[in-house]
């Protein structure tokens, strides 16, 4: 919530990953919920529903789904639209997407640093397990993409990735929908996509997420909130300024207002969660004071992203 006090930004891999963390995550590997038959063979099987002949499951039809996969038999029986899911065979790519809007330059500890560390740790797991790793930073530039790096593979590209992550800085505002569209258009192949963001998009998160998940990506959304956003340490008569667009809100902090704010936050998270569940998006909501190894070893393992 409150802007992060100025502090040195990470400069190298060592700043992002300390040796203890590396020791913890070294044995991890990426997993996908689909069978993996990519151009480049990886080291495991992956289960992922997609386009293949092997039926896997049904799920409720959502806007944007390919209408060719609707199961008309079920529609005939239940009068509801379901799509058939098939085991898909594809090579596994790891696509890291970082939200570099200025709202991440807040919180104590800072949300952006947490995102950088988490992305680097995930990228490390992908690279050392010989997966194809790409990364995109969304930001206020042409097409709402700040910068991107792609086709990294193998341990020796670690420093390249680290350098790229370190070069990122939270700045300004951008259109999430536009960025999602660009990412979806530019993507080649299929794989796992992990989006790091606080998901506070004034235009709404729905359109962007739909675009990202629509092309068959196994999408994980890591929503990063600062502890100050969950429990605002505010009192008195305030003029709240949005760091991204200088929007202002005059408030007198009172118990009912804080109660209402927390209820809104919970409702927003629930809305996001429901949206994600409908589209098989994995949503992980964390606070920026969570240790990165807990995110990887505990949360992501449970969701099946890492094994």
């Amino acid at each position: 919530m409150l802007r992060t006090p100025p502090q040195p930004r990470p400069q190298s891999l060592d700043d992002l990953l300390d040796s203890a963390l590396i020791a913890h995550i070294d044995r991890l590997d990426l997993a996908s919920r689909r069978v993996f038959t990519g151009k480049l063979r990886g080291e495991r099987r992956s289960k992922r529903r997609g386009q293949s002949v092997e039926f896997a499951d049904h799920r409720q039809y959502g806007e944007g789904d390919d209408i060719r996969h609707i199961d008309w038999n079920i529609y005939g029986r239940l009068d509801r639209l379901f799509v058939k899911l098939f085991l898909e065979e594809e090579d596994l790519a790891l696509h890291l997407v970082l939200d570099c809007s200025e709202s991440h330059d807040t919180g104590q500890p800072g949300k952006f640093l947490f995102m950088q560390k988490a992305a680097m740790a995930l990228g490390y797991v992908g690279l050392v397990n010989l997966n194809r790793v790409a990364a995109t930073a969304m930001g206020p530039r042409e097409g709402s993409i700040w910068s991107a790096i792609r086709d990294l593979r193998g341990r020796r590209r670690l420093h390249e990735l680290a350098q790229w992550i370190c070069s990122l800085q939270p700045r300004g505002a951008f259109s999430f929908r536009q960025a999602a569209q660009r990412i979806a258009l530019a993507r080649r192949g299929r794989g796992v996509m992990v989006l790091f963001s606080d998901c506070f998009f004034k235009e709404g998160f729905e359109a962007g997420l739909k675009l990202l998940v629509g092309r068959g990506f196994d999408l994980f959304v890591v929503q990063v909130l600062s502890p100050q956003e969950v429990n605002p340490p505010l009192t008195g008569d305030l003029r709240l300024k949005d760091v991204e667009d200088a929007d202002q809100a005059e408030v007198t902090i009172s118990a009912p207002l804080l109660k209402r704010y927390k209820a809104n936050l919970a409702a927003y998270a629930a809305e996001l969660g429901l949206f994600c569940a409908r589209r098989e998006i994995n949503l992980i909501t964390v606070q920026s004071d969570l240790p990165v190894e807990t995110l990887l070893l505990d949360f992501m393992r449970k969701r099946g992203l890492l094994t």
Partner: protein
Amino acid sequence: MTWLTPTLATIAAAIAVPTLLLLYFLKLRRRDVEVSTTLLWKRAIQDLQANAPFQRIRRNILLILQLIVLGAALAALGQPQTRGDTQVGSRHIILIDRSASMQTRDEEGTPPVSRLDAARKQALALVESLREPTILQKDRADQAMVISFDASARVVQNFTSDKGLLRAAINAIEPADTPTSIALAIQLAKAQSPTRMHVDRDGSVTRVEGLTEGPTSVIHVWTDGRIADVAEANPGPGEQIVFNRVGKPETGNVALVGLRSERAFDLPARLSVYAGIESTEPADRALDVELLLDGQVAMIRPVTLPAARTAIGADPARPVTPSVGGVVFTLEREQGALAQVRLRTAGGDLADDPLDVDNRAWLVVPPAKRLAVALVTRDNLFLKTALEGMPLARLTVLTPAQYQAAIALGKSADHDVVILDAWAPPLDPARAPIQGALPPTGLPPGRFLVLGAVPGGADGYQLVEREPTGAQSLLDWRRDHPVLRGLLLDAVAIAQARAVAPAEGAGVAVIASADHGPAMLEVADERSRALVVTFVPTDSNWPLNWSFIVFLAQAVTYLGDDQAITGAGQTPRLVQPGEIIRDRVPPGVPEVEVTTPAGLTHKVQPAADGQVVFGPITTVGPYRLAWSGPAETPAARLFAANLLDSAESDVAASAELALATAAVGATTAQATLDRKLWPWLILAALGLLMIEWFVYNRKVHV
């Protein structure tokens, strides 16, 4: 409801309320805080506004509370009060009776409260109801003064509007065991109004005595109406009297109303004590009357007093005729004693009697004494025969030469009384008059009845002799003097008498006067004391009159009873509270110590002639005067102060005060009091302030 200072409150409101509102409408100075997104906050604000229809009021609840607090404070500034309707006039005179009957315990309470306590309480309530000075107008306050009265009256507190002073004055009024007199109190109250001024045509201003002007006072009297001189009380024409009666009209009481002791003439050791008792109770009353001598119970006599009668057509001031009873204690006792008589029930204390002060009385009983008398005469048959008929211990007849020899031997004081018949001892050169000191009598130590001679006689002595005078008769004598009591001296014709002039300032008392000057005088110095008759009885027709014998007996008794020397000639050593103790000690005594019944001691300086005055006393009981003089060993005298007042002991509260000008009926119920509202308003403002603080805290903190 009345507002004492509405203008002040209005002005303050005109300033304070707009200021508060202005402060509220000034834009809040908000602190800038950067947040990651205002998205959720804006939604929260919208939600709050959407969900709370009274949001505007809720946001301003603090303002509303503050306005109420301000309103309460401003209303308090207006000094509102609900007002009773009996308060007329702005000057009040509070008269509180503190006499003996006001100690009657018959007011509501357990145990019953005394009438004086009830009166004080009601008077304090009146003081509370007085208008107080307002913030702007100090002179709008009611004023009151406090006068307490018993046998006399005293201003306890002069006119003031300071309620603290008035309360303290009322609380300081202590009961006194005295009879009641209201005339002086009314006069004191009347004196507080300024005299009316009359402006003549030429501009000169004269005061018209007896007429008053200015704001009239309301005189509030708290009494039970047992007032002896109520008919003499004459309030001023404009003054309104409110008679607040305390006590109940049906209260009965038993009381000692008389006490006297006597020794038989022929048997001085036989002592008789008479006690008179009255009862105003509606039923028969059995009592034990105890006689205590020097603190020890000596005798108990039971007595039953019949019920008091209520006579039809009786005096409305005393509708009940008290029943009268009495007892006589007869016992053998030669010594003097301090006797006390007290009323008790058979079982113990007279606890159910509402008035305690009249259930006991004291009496100083002189010792039985037969006197030794010396008659110094050449040969006086009348005197000798008269004295031989008296019950004396010893009568010695001496010639002047024999007596002079006795003086030379220092035996002049062998006799209690020496009667000098037409002869005075020669002057002692060793005791010549000293300039500036009290003149001596010119007599040797002792007590003398001097007939037809002038002791001293020369300049510088108490009596100075002039040329002899011719035939004359007695014109005037003090009938209340113990020596002359009951005597008729009109028929006494004197052939010739010595002419004497009393020295100035020597304290010589002339007790009888004839045509050409004093005929009988009383003189005293530190050693001697004498009654001087300026003519020889045989030079008159007096010895043939029975009054001569009575005079001799009374003079011998008076001089011989060395303690009965009250110069004023009152009944010796029996006083009533409210009076003063007056005594005469030997001249030259520097200081007299008076011990009251409560055990307190007071130092009193006697006058040059030995007069001692103490009082007026307020409590019953024995008073002791002690001194040590230059010529005497330490000595002491006792005085007994008793109520012994039938009117005061009749404690039935009367229904009206029959004053000289009008009869005032009793108002027993206390008038409706002013109730001040501003303390409640301030209290409410404080309470609201606390609520406001609570609300503010709830708003700010989570």
